[in-house]
């Protein structure tokens, strides 16, 4: 029992150096510095929003001045999960739905790392929904980027918990009749300390939201509205890639939600964006280490 060593954060995480050279960091960002160039071009379909989201994430990481060696990207399965593969940092490609569980273990073991989870709507809300609510409840210092393209993209377009009403998918050939999850409100209700949503077309805004989430000490849940152009777009006639990305600013596909009476309490405005929650709930890792410190001190005293 006494031999059990609990790793301690080596030093308080140096996150705030960005405040001095914030603007410079915005300007001098070179995405190539953060990519595994040998894997390019990436596998994603033409126009896929996940690529835009990846830029925003890497830019935010750059602005925060996070050392790549202290950065751990944990991702699940799906096109969203594959995004992590392209980041030149410590990447951890885990099982479907479980990146938050792996990330929780990693962050507990290595509190010195910046742990960022990249997940999809299927990965995070369907098979991994349970992990999401408990990660949010604990408020462990993890940044969770959920790329919401409202479909299972990788497996050819099955319905997901965020697929809007009447959408055609391979599992809803006559149109979707299931009500949707509002992922941000779900995370908020489960206790996430930081919750925000943004669309990919507003790259600088998305970058700043992610940057704020990275800076937050606690569980940050960031819902990125992304476009699955090839599967979702084609099946539902949502237009070309450029039309889809432009459509994000048109009040986020309001018609789909209008027809869905059950959805109304969940999504009164088809889409609102920005920071929804930023609370000062205790961070789980810190509480845990305090507890362990207390126990160890007591034991030494005996």
């Amino acid at each position, binding site marked *: 029992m006494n031999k059990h060593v609990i790793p301690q954060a080596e030093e308080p995480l140096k996150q705030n150096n960005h405040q001095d050279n914030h603007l410079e960091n915005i300007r001098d960002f070179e*995405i*190539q510095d953060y*990519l595994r160039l040998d894997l390019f071009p990436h596998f*994603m379909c033409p126009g896929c929003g996940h690529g835009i989201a990846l830029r925003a994430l890497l830019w935010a990481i750059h602005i925060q001045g996070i050392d790549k060696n202290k950065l751990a990207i944990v991702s699940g399965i799906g096109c969203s999960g594959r995004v992590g593969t392209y980041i030149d940092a410590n990447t951890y490609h885990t099982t479907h739905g479980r990146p938050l569980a792996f990330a929780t273990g990693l962050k507990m073991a290595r509190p010195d790392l910046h742990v960022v989870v990249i997940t999809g709507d299927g990965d995070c809300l369907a098979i991994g929904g349970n992990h999401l609510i408990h990660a949010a409840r604990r408020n462990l210092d993890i940044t969770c980027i959920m790329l919401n393209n409202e479909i299972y993209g990788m497996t050819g377009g099955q319905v997901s918990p965020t697929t809007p009403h009447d959408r055609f998918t391979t599992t809803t050939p006559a149109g979707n009749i299931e009500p949707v999850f509002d992922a941000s409100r779900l995370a908020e209700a489960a206790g996430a300390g930081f919750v925000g949503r943004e669309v990919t077309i507003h790259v600088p805004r998305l970058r700043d939201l992610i940057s704020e989430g990275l800076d937050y000490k606690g569980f940050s849940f960031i819902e990125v509205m992304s476009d699955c152009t090839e599967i979702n777009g084609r099946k539902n006639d949502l237009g070309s890639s450029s039309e889809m990305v*432009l459509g994000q600013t048109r009040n986020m596909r309001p018609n789909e939600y209008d027809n869905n009476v059950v959805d109304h309490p969940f999504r009164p405005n088809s889409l609102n964006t920005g920071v929804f929650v930023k609370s000062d709930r205790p961070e789980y890792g810190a509480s845990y280490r305090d507890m362990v410190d207390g126990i160890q001190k007591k034991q030494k005293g005996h």
Partner: protein
Amino acid sequence: MAKAKKNKSSRKVDLANRMPLKLNPGRLDPETSDEAINVLIVGVGGQGVIMVSKVLAQICQNLGLQVKQSEVHGMAKRGGVVFSHVRFGKTVWSPTIPMGKADVLIALEWAEGLRWMNYLRPATGIFITDTKRIVPPFACRSRILGADIGYSKNTPDDVIGKVAEAFAIDATDMAAKAGNELAANTLLLGALSTTLTFSNEVWREVIAQMVPPKTIEVNLKVFDQGQKWIEGSRKGEPVEGSAFVPLVQPEEYPMRTTLSITEEWCKGCDICIKMCPERCLTLNKDQVVELADPEKCTGCHICEWLCPDFAISLNPALNPPSNPKVQEAVA
């Protein structure tokens, strides 16, 4: 000029008795014509065009003259045109000044003044303008750095000969030096006063009534300055505040960023092409993006940021403009 001044003070009583107005010798004389005197005041929103016309109208009323004033205002927030017609004399019928019939044109903004110059009487009209330039946002529709500005390139020298008499005063600067930039309109009132027969006391009294109490002193000071400026320049004395610095106009459109395309990474999704505000990208026959019109690219980064495949990068390495004036402005 000194003579003219004497005339003015001696005529104060006449005016009070509704005697016909008399302008400076050699200028328009309403005694020989029954037409009203026409003063047109123009500017952009927020400069005090209406205040100038109110002072003038109030003086006329105090002196028992007929006066009619009509204005277009309310565009101040959008920086829109504001003008005010003031007509006064023994009898005034219409409230608006016909084109080519203004005796004096007071412009609180340089380009606005030029715009309304055709309202002046060709042979006798007097043009008094602030050289202050307020360039509206729509004067430059191009987003290219250093792009040509669609704003008057005329200098005061260009105006000479087109009107009977013209005075270009850096009134805003002079008023700022006197303590309140906003008093520039009063400085121009001082200039206007030299073309009319009202006594200084009348002007000063009404100005003191119209301006905010805290600014009376500075307003009266710049009123004097405006008067002296015109008198001095009529006498050919060197006058302060007439400096007119031409706008820096680049001779070419300097491109400051270079756009590089990683063709192997482009998937031809069309996002950058459709989202580029300048429409300068295109897909080539291999469905790969191409910068078709480099001249138009403003380096706005939109294509770079929205490309899901990181196939475009904007190189901020400077391609400095060759025009040294532009170099200076950019720096």
